[in-house]
């Protein structure tokens, strides 16, 4: 399950941020490592919600700053 989640999360990150797949490792920070700005991260969270059919509250969204954070949240809550 979590591998599947990680793959889907990474695919979304690659598409939305236009970055090389190889750079989207679990520890990568959206802003520090992948060139996102604060609006990009808002949109990323919306894309995760769409992909996984869930709702990510704002206070939880603020804590999703790396690929691993996203995988963890989705694995635990969906």
């Amino acid at each position: 399950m979590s591998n599947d989640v990680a793959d889907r999360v990474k695919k979304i990150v690659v598409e939305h941020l236009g970055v090389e797949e190889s750079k989207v490792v679990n520890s990568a920070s959206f802003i520090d490592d992948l060139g996102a700005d604060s609006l990009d991260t808002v949109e990323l969270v919306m894309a995760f919600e769409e992909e996984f059919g869930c709702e990510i509250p704002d206070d939880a969204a603020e804590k999703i700053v790396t690929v691993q954070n996203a995988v963890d949240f989705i694995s635990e809550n969906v």
Partner: protein
Amino acid sequence: MRRVVITGLGMVSPLGSGVDHIWSRLINGESGINKIEGFEVSDLPSQIAGQVPVGETADGKFNVEEFVPLKDRRKLDPFIVFGMAAAQQAIEDSGWEPPNEESQFRTGVMIGSGIGGLQAIANGALLLEEKGPRKLSPFFIPSALINLVSGQVSIKYGYKGPNHAVVTACSTGAHAIGDAARLIMLDDADVMIAGGAEAAVCRLGIAGFCASRALSSGYNDAPEKGSRPWDQGRDGFVMGEGAGAVVLEELEHAKARGATIYGEVVGYGLSGDAYHITAPPADGNGGFRAMSAALKRAGISASDVNYINAHGTSTPLGDEIEFGAVKRLFGGNDNLCMSSTKSAIGHLLGAAGAVEAIFSIKAIKEGVVPPTLNLENPSEECRGINLVPLEAQERKIDIALSNSFGFGGTNASLVLKAFR
């Protein structure tokens, strides 16, 4: 006053992408007006428009990949994409790259739009209604704002000088070039990227202009015949989309770096009708005063003008009124000709003035005047001036004037001159 010259040209229009390609098709008498594609029009009175042809650059078509990276595209309404593309072409054509921060401070952008992100707003409103506020993109607002063409271009190229955007409906492009030239004349900048961008050929845009009874509705089965300025069969304007941008530069700045100089911005006149939101006054005094002011600023007389690129939208009322004002001001100038390039590409609203200023500069540079397509039977009231019907004419053009008139009664005239 410092002198301002044009050193770069860029354009995206219904005749394609790139000034040279568009110009050759224009001179060839080709039309960019077609049956509308991409959205439902069966219930709309007007079903034709000039839409930007998408395809390979080598074929003269618009390839978005050359201008905006994939990841940024969904953040940008099409009007911003068109504006960025025209600006990129103009900047590359000019060869201008600020060599240091001081040069960045002296380079600015003034690209406006008549309506702005209409498609983004329309889609955003539907999304809000259907799925609620949480589904609205964080990029919705910066995708819709008119000044975001200027903003995006400045960010992309590091231009830190004046950053501004004109919004004067169909006069936008002309006002942008005139106002940006003044910023250079007044020493607020040395280089300005100026122009207009529009992408209102969408269901809401067409339906809206249909509601105000402004669009042609009688040529849905013969789209290329729909835009016919001064012709007896005209019945409204045809919508177009695209963008035009020029690089304006202080003369000595351009000379010092050996830039190609296309021509000089010598005159600019503005006026207001103070009459009606969509109709000009019958005597055309607003247009007359804008043209007079532009001639005065240029320090020339009416007999010095060789070519007028008319506002000429193909509306029953507007064409005759502009014609009357021109005749009143330029009567006796036997060397004058006037054409409407909207006959080939439709009315690009906020981009029109910029696109038409570029056509005027090309007419000067190439010694060819673009035709007024579909002008088969001029109205009785539109006779006595060479309106360049149907086919381009070779003529020596030293000075050209370009008119733009907008809803709200806002008028602008530019006077452009060969550089010698």
